[in-house]
């Protein structure tokens, strides 16, 4: 029997507000445990939450970027459960009226656009973190760090539109790109500012009834999301093939073992007893405010990609790569304004620039080359001042120390030799020194010309204008 997986994702994204959602404590990652806490985020008796407007704004911004409808009235609700990392004994979340509903993200699956619907996006507070010595069961004690408690989060829940692990990865990458564009989060999976749980079930191909699902947790990278989902699909298939039933449960992905283990059964699902928190008053989101947030949204990846194709005449592939981060796309846009040959600029981006960024593990934001310098370099090639080959060397220099290409060219004497007399002299020498290849060429071996051009370039240390060398040599050997 063939099975068809049904996958929905729940993604938690920490917001980049300076302070927590209900108090003034800093949200900076990696501080000394419990150094960023106060009576409110510690849930001390008598303290009361005060909603951070910025967190609401960020949630609306994210929801708009994911094409959601924005709620006009919302409450902040208590989700009640007992756990040591939960300082108030409840988490404040938007249970009844999520900020955004009915959105979508389009992903590109093998050249086809596929739409993944967003069920909802809601705002909530993060919990603290339990720290153990080694394995949780073997640890002699639990310690709690409340620095993370009260950091604002949005939880994004997809519809079960994802069919395989590859789509899950593509979706996550696209989601991350969009959210990074909006600036609401730094979306670092390794630091936990983006976390993904997956609801996975399988059903016989063509079936309309979903199978029992498991919820997979603890996947800390795109790769582990992909691996975890694959593992779970295989595991569930084996169970169904042996005529057993998949137990609905929460499962834990173990990265080093590459397998999942059961955490808790869904039959014993918690009853969270959600009700609006009387200490956080309901919020009416003003229409004008939402419009302002909408207008302030940057051009998002899909729009940008479409514009690059339309305005710059780039191939879809180039446009997709160039818009993969906002910073890269902005860099490209600026370079094109200064040197208006979009495809040439794109080639340089996709070849030289991104190659060096990848090799040297440098982010575009830290790149020493400026759009202006890159445009200058391209102009030097365009004017024939340097050859394309030399330009690549110059670019490496620029990448290393951020110098202006003109200065590098002058300093190193790299200006292209385009003087006919000078080139003729070199050609003469080369022809004289290589009678064999000259004879070969005259005898019909066209390939020999390449060798002779190469000799000229070698003599001039690559500075000879290759088109001119070709012409002079050709004329000479006629």
């Amino acid at each position, binding site marked *: 029997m063939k099975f068809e997986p049904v996958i929905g994702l729940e993604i938690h994204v920490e917001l980049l507000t300076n302070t927590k959602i209900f108090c003034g404590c800093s949200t900076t990652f990696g501080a000394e445990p419990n150094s960023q806490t106060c009576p409110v985020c510690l849930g*001390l*008796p008598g303290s009361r939450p005060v909603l951070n407007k910025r967190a609401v704004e960020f949630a609306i911004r994210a929801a708009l970027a994911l094409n959601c409808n924005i709620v006009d009235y919302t409450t902040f609700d208590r989700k009640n459960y007992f756990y040591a990392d939960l300082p*108030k004994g*409840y988490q404040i979340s938007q249970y009844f009226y999520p900020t955004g509903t009915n959105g979508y993200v389009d992903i590109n699956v093998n050249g086809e656009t596929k739409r993944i619907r967003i069920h909802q996006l809601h705002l909530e507070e993060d919990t603290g973190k339990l720290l153990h010595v080694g394995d949780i069961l073997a640890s002699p004690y639990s310690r709690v760090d409340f620095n993370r408690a009260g950091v604002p989060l949005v939880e994004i829940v997809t519809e079960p539109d994802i069919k395989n692990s590859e789509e899950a990865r593509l979706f996550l990458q696209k989601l991350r790109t969009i959210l990074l564009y909006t600036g609401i989060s730094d979306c670092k999976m390794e630091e936990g500012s983006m976390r993904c749980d997956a609801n996975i079930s399988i059903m016989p191909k063509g079936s309309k009834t979903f199978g029992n699902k498991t919820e997979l947790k603890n996947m800390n990278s795109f790769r582990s999301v992909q691996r975890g989902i694959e593992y779970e699909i295989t595991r569930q298939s084996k169970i169904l093939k042996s005529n057993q039933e998949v137990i609905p449960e929460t499962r834990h992905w173990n990265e080093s073992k590459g397998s999942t283990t059961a955490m808790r059964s869904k039959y014993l699902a918690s009853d969270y007893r959600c009700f609006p928190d009387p*200490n956080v008053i309901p919020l009416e989101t003003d229409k004008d405010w939402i419009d302002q947030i909408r207008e302030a949204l940057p051009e998002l990846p899909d729009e940008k990609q479409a514009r690059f194709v339309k305005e710059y005449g780039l191939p879809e592939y180039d446009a997709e790569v160039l818009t993969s981060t906002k910073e890269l796309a902005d860099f490209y846009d600026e370079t094109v304004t200064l040197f208006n040959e979009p495809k040439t600029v794109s080639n340089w981006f996709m070849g030289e620039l991104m190659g060096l960024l990848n090799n040297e593990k440098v982010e575009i934001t830290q790149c020493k080359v400026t759009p202006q310098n890159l445009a200058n370099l391209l102009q030097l090639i365009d004017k024939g001042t340097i050859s394309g080959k030399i330009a690549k060397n110059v670019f490496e220099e620029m990448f290393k120390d951020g110098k202006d290409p003109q200065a590098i060219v002058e300093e190193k004497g790299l200006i292209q030799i385009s003087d006919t007399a000078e080139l003729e002299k070199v050609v003469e020498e080369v022809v004289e020194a290589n009678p064999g290849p000259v004879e070969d060429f005259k005898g019909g071996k066209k390939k020999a010309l390449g060798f002779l051009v190469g000799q000229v370039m070698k003599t001039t240390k690559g500075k000879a204008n290759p088109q001119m060398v070709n012409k002079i040599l050709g004329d000479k050997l006629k």
Partner: protein
Amino acid sequence: MNFSNLTIQEVNHMYKEGQTTLNELSSKFFDRAKNVQDKYNAFITLDSDYYNNVVEDISEELGEDHSLAGIPAVLGDNICTKNLRTTCGSKIMENYISPFNAQVVDKLLEAGVIISGKGNIDEFGAGDSKGSSYYGHSKNPWNEKITPGNGAACAIASGTALFGLASDASGNLRQSAAYCGIAGLKPTYGRVSRYGLIDYAPSLDQIGILAKNARDIALVLACTAGKDSRDVTSLDNPVPKYINEIQGQLEGLKVGIVKNWEEAGSLENEVKKSFQKEIETLKEKGVKIIEVDIPSLFHSSTVTAIIGAVEAFSNLANFDGVRFGCRAESKHLHEMYIKTRTEGLGTYLKRFLTFGAMASSEKHFNSLFLTAQKMRTKIIKELQKTLEEVDMIATPTVPFQAPSLESSGKDEGITGSADVFTSAANLAGLPAISIPVNIDTSTPTGFQLMGRTFEEGTLLKVLHSLEINKNIQWPTV
């Protein structure tokens, strides 16, 4: 010094005329508090170091008109004080010292008030003055065999403090006032910041004022009212000079009497008679008495109990031994929770919280919690409509006289029978005052007026007018 009859105005006069000094007055009051404590158990914490520090820190000019400087006051023990433990009347918080002061405490200290100690309360302020405190019953200074409600009211009636602040979630503050023959005001929801109040039901709770007369309440309300950015439910309506609002005639005022008020469960004849007497007095003063119909009024104590229990179940969830309060030792987290809460919380409270967990569970959410919320909306609407017709609604405060200590705390139910008339004001966030009546006998009771939001001044005016001719013989200690 005759402690029992003192008012803020009189103490200010004594300071001004040099009849006493801060040191003399404060030490006499503290000595008296200790004596009263032995007799009536009014306080959970009386700490001489804390007391002396507070007195030493007073730098305000004494004896000014309307000043609270050098005035001894008592706080219910669910109001947070830095450097002085806040127990909530519970074992689980036996040694808890808050790192911050409640907003009202900061305001009182700034005004130079002497915080004499922390008054006994029902555990976490839950219930209808049941005497469920881990620290034992307080006794009523009018009659040691009956309950005074909370310890703050007891402290004031016995002359150890001139006023007190305490919480009122279903009427406990007003009931205590009625039992002790003093006045108690629960202000409009949002009038006074709840920052630093360890409440159990945040949508119902409000910090109120206990004192012997309208002038004193007016001064304390002016000091404590106002917007606080740390409590988003506090409101920034202007704070009037309440002391000026209490003056004047009652003529033309319209007071509503609920049509079927006499049908209230456990209404005692004594209470009925004194209520009618008070109504007669109001009529003599030119007040227009109008019969009003509030069909859902008698559901308010049940509705309050359901909503209060659900909120309390959630609000008290973090009294679990993880970060503060008592902790029972155990190797496993959930076992620790269960042991800590089993040992740390009292029987009535546990029953109340269990009920709250049930009322909010998936199975009962719609039939209990949601129904209660709908009923709350209905009650609010009925009250609003009535208050378009009349200026205030009069009822007895409690349908019965202060219960005996033997009977109180034995009530097995969740709904407080003393809350019948008081809890509607908590549901609707309306201001309500308990005016002492029957204080010429030794079993005082209360006359309640519920007014429009932010019209505390009018309620105080009625209190002021009714108290003028009363010459009270306070119980001797």
